[in-house]
C-alpha cells in the first residue's frame, strides 16, 4: 500500500449536481418480476436513481456543481491553480475533459488541468493528488471535479447493474489552511481487471459491429461488449478482503481508534456490502451515512455526493472522518481527514 501523509491541507467546500430525471427501481418490471424487484431493493438499499439525458455528460454535471461551489463560496477563478477531472465517462476519447472544463469555468490559462481515469476509488485518489498539489508553494487551491454517468454504459436489459447505478457530478475545493493531518492509503491489484469492465470500445478491443451486438447470458441479462459488466461475487469477495483492512490501516497510521472515529463515508456500492463492512469493523451504523437510497451507486461521485446530500444538515461530529472507495481496477483507497471546515452547498439538479 502507498501511504501519503499531509498537513495543513483540507477540503474547504463541496457541491454536487444530479440529473432531474428520476428512475425508480420499483418501475423496473420490464426487467424482472415484482417479487424479485422488491427483494433487490431491500438488499441493495436503492429505491431510485437519477439518470442524465442523452446529451448531458458527466462534465456538464460537474460544471454545474463547480459553478455553484465557486458562487456560494465567492471563489475567484484566478485563485484556482489546478483542476482535476475524475471520470470514466469523459466527453471524448481525446482530448482530456479537464482543459475543456477549465475553459468553460473561466479559469486562467495558468491552471494545470488533467483527467484521472478511475472508477469507484476515484474520489480518494483524486483527493490525494489534489492534496499533493495544494501542498506546493505555487498552488493555493485545487478544484477536484468528480462525475460519472454510468447510465450511458449500463445496458437497460442488465438485471444486475440497472438497479444499482445512477449519475452525478460533484465539485470539491482543496486548499491550504488549518486542517490538521490527513492520511491516505492507496492500493491496486490489476490481476482483477476483468471483475468490473467495459471490454470493447478502447484500443485493446476497438469498437466494431461484433462488439455492439446485444448478447444474452445464462441469467437472462442482455449486454453488448461495450456495456459495463461486473461479477457481483468477485466484487463482494474483493471488498471483504480489502475494505475493513484498508480502513484499519489509515486508522492505525493516524493513531485513531475505531471507537473515536466520527464518520465513515463509504463509496456507495450497495447497502448489503457496506453494512457488512461496517459490521466487520464493529462500527456503529449511525456513523456511516448513506445517499444511495435516492441516488444509487454513482461510482466515483458517490462519496462527495453523500457529503452534500447527508452532511449538509446532519452529522455534526466530523473531526475524524474516513472516506473509503473501492472498485474497478481493481483499485481501492481510504483517507482519514477533518471535515469541520468543509462548507457544503445545497444539492442542485440539472
Amino acid at each position, binding site marked *: 500500500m502507498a501511504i501519503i501523509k499531509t498537513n495543513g491541507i483540507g477540503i474547504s467546500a463541496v457541491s454536487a449536481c444530479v440529473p432531474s430525471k428520476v428512475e425508480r427501481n420499483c418501475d423496473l418490471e420490464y426487467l424482472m418480476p415484482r417479487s424479485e424487484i422488491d*427483494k433487490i431493493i431491500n438488499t441493495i438499499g436503492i429505491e431510485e436513481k437519477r439518470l442524465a439525458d442523452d446529451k448531458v455528460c458527466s462534465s456538464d454535471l460537474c460544471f454545474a456543481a463547480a459553478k455553484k461551489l465557486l458562487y456560494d463560496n465567492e471563489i475567484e477563478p484566478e485563485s484556482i491553480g489546478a483542476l482535476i477531472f475524475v471520470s470514466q465517462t469523459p466527453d471524448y476519447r481525446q482530448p482530456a475533459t479537464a482543459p475543456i472544463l477549465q475553459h468553460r469555468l473561466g479559469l486562467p490559462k495558468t491552471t494545470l488541468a488533467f483527467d484521472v481515469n478511475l472508477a469507484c476509488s476515484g474520489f480518494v485518489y483524486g483527493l490525494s493528488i489534489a492534496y499533493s498539489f495544494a501542498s506546493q508553494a505555487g498552488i493555493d487551491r485545487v478544484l477536484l471535479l468528480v462525475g460519472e454517468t454510468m447510465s450511458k454504459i449500463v445496458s437497460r436489459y442488465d438485471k444486475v447493474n440497472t438497479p444499482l447505478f445512477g449519475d452525478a457530478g460533484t465539485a470539491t475545493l482543496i486548499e491550504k489552511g488549518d486542517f490538521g493531518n490527513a492520511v491516505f492509503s492507496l492500493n491496486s491489484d490489476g490481476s482483477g481487471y476483468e471483475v468490473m469492465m467495459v471490454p470493447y470500445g478502447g484500443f485493446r478491443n476497438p469498437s466494431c459491429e461484433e462488439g455492439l451486438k446485444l448478447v444474452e447470458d445464462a441469467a437472462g441479462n442482455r449486454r453488448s461488449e461495450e456495456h459495463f459488466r461486473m461479477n*457481483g*461475487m468477485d466484487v*463482494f469477495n474483493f471488498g471483504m478482503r480489502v475494505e475493513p483492512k484498508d480502513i484499519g490501516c489509515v486508522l492505525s497510521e493516524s493513531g485513531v481508534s475505531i471507537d473515536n472515529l466520527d464518520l465513515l463515508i463509504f463509496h456507495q456500492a450497495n447497502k448489503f456490502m457496506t453494512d457488512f463492512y461496517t459490521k466487520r469493523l464493529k462500527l456503529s451504523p449511525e456513523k456511516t451515512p448513506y445517499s444511495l437510497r435516492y441516488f444509487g451507486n454513482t461510482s466515483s461521485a458517490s462519496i462527495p455526493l453523500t457529503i452534500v446530500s447527508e452532511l449538509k444538515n446532519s452529522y455534526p461530529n466530523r473531526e475524524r472522518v474516513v472516506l473509503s472507495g473501492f472498485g474497478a481496477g481493481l483499485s481501492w483507497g481510504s483517507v482519514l481527514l477533518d471535515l469541520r471546515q468543509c462548507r457544503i452547498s445545497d444539492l442542485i439538479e440539472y
Partner: protein
Amino acid sequence: MVDEKQFLQNFADQFDDEPEGLSLETLFRDIDGWSSIVALSIMAMCAEEYDVILSANEMENANRVSDIYNIVNERIEQ
C-alpha cells in the same frame, strides 16, 4: 472442526424461507428461493461466523452444502 448442526442452521438462515431438512448432501441451488443474493449472504455468513472468505470461484463451483462446509473446515484447520 466446525459444528455441523450449527453450520447447517447458519446456512439455512440465509434463505428468506428457511429450507426444511437441509443436510450436507443437499444441492443448495435447487432450494426454492435460491438467488445470487443468497449466494452473497452465504459468503457473508462464512466471513462473519468463521472468518473464512470464499472466492467467487469457490462459491460458483459449489453445489452441495458439504462443498462449502469442507472449504470452511479446511481454512479453519490451516
